[in-house]
């Protein structure tokens, strides 16, 4: 191929610079352009709300412990996955996830719809010692999650999320601490908390209403996964992505 000569490109700085720019732009556009079309790729379904402060802390622990290395959160649109896990995942369901937890490896089951499938007791017992309830499990034990949750900076976490586009309101940020504690204490007054976070469950997730532990946070997070959209009420139009 006489007309194409690498040597020519490699010895001409301007030509090389222009061609590099073109190549990088193509790659960049392929990643950036879809972001401008988010409005049409995210379904307009009801029910999606930002994580409650306790769930957000649970999510942070989920990321910290690397649960995503064994668990995906993405029910793909195949019949076998629907039969096992339920409705396929919608883009809207992870729109407040920074970063998303879709994952790419399943040593354990998908967790996108694990919320409500088991009791709080089971979740806590399973995290403390997976083999105590599932003898054949290869999941590592996380008994240390029974330690107190450090949440003095919870309002800052919400602010950081707001800075990257999660619609936390001023009231949510001002009450972050109170909301976090209210969710972990079933006897706390639900009115204010429930008003800010629709259909969020209050419970002693780890079995002990006295202290707020990391276990409370992780179980609260797991128990809401995949429960926000009421699929019975979703129309095919809302679900159509494009």
């Amino acid at each position, binding site marked *: 191929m006489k007309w194409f000569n690498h*040597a020519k490109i490699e*010895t001409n700085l301007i030509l090389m610079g222009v061609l590099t720019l073109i190549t990088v732009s193509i790659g960049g556009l392929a990643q950036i*352009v*879809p972001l401008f*079309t988010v409005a*049409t*790729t995210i379904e307009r379904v009801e029910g999606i709300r930002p994580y409650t402060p306790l769930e957000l802390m649970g999510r942070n622990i989920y990321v910290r412990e690397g649960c995503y290395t064994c668990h995906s959160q993405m029910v793909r*649109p*195949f*019949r076998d996955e*629907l039969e*096992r896990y*339920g409705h*396929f995942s919608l883009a809207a369901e992870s729109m407040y996830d920074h970063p998303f937890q879709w994952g790419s490896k399943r040593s354990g089951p998908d967790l996108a719809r694990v919320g*409500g*499938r*088991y*009791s*709080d*007791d*089971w979740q806590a*017992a*399973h995290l403390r010692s997976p083999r*105590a*309830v*599932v*003898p*054949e499990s290869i999941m590592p034990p996380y008994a240390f999650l029974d330690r107190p949750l450090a949440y003095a900076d919870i309002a800052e976490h919400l602010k950081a999320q707001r800075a990257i586009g999660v619609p936390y309101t001023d009231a949510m940020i001002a009450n972050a601490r109170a909301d976090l504690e209210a969710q972990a204490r079933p006897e706390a007054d639900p009115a204010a908390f429930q008003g800010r976070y629709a259909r969020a*469950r209050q419970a002693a997730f780890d*079995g002990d209403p006295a202290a707020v532990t990391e276990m409370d946070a992780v179980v609260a997070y797991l128990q809401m996964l995949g429960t926000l959209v009421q699929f019975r009420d979703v129309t095919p139009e809302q*679900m*159509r*992505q*494009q």
Partner: protein
Amino acid sequence: MPTKIEKDALTGTNTTGHEWDGLKELNTPLPKWWLYVMYATIAFSAVWVILYPAFPFQGATGVTGWIAREAVVQDVAAANERMAPMMNRLRAATPQQIAADPELRAFAMAGGRIAFANNCAACHGAGGQGAVGGFPSLADDDWIWGGSYDAIHQTIAHGIRNEEDDEARTSMMPRFVADGVLTPAQVNDVASYVVSLAGDADPGQAAEAERGKPLYAENCASCHGDTGEGNRDVGAPRLNDRIWLHGADRHAIARFIANPRMGVMPAWAGRLDPATINMLTVYVHALGGGEN
């Protein structure tokens, strides 16, 4: 600019023309097969972009019009149609009728096994053997709520002490120490008595058990029965056997009496097809302890 491109005598391949301290590098061309496979993948991707949805724009579906989400809905509908004749029969029949019909029963046992592995095994064990920590065995004849077809069906469909189903089975054992009904010492006594009911009396604890007997009659017999035979109406387990939800250790039993953790099971009526719940009922009934 490489200047000294020369043919290597041994391989017949050109060198790159560079030379470092007398070292030259062969400019061996990429293997033909590799190159053609790469060109083929590029051509394939071009065809793919035309045929299938590749751009995130309104209406950019590709010329085939194929959309994963619609394809899976059709897949599910086709499979449901294939299975409809059998599933309709399983939906219409009662668990008793399914068990009595060999064809339906064989189908229900196979389907029930899969549904059990997917939905129930995490709590009740792969073989229904249960787990210490409040998850009962379903393979024995020691039932908390009942082992007839109807009782099992009701338990599975509505669950136990959950927040989602108004018809869930429910009952609460008092938190005897936490609620201040008994002192820790009294709980210790009544625990020793309970253990003796099960036939595991420890002679060293005879005095405690003796003190625990009237406490039992007063506080516990109303639910668990005079001799610890249990009461299925309120889901109070038998205490006069050696089957324990939270372990056979006397201290574990005392801890439970002081501050019980009541078992919770989700309701399955909203999650599973009625036919699947019928299949599960027949399957669980056949695990070992089914009653008539």
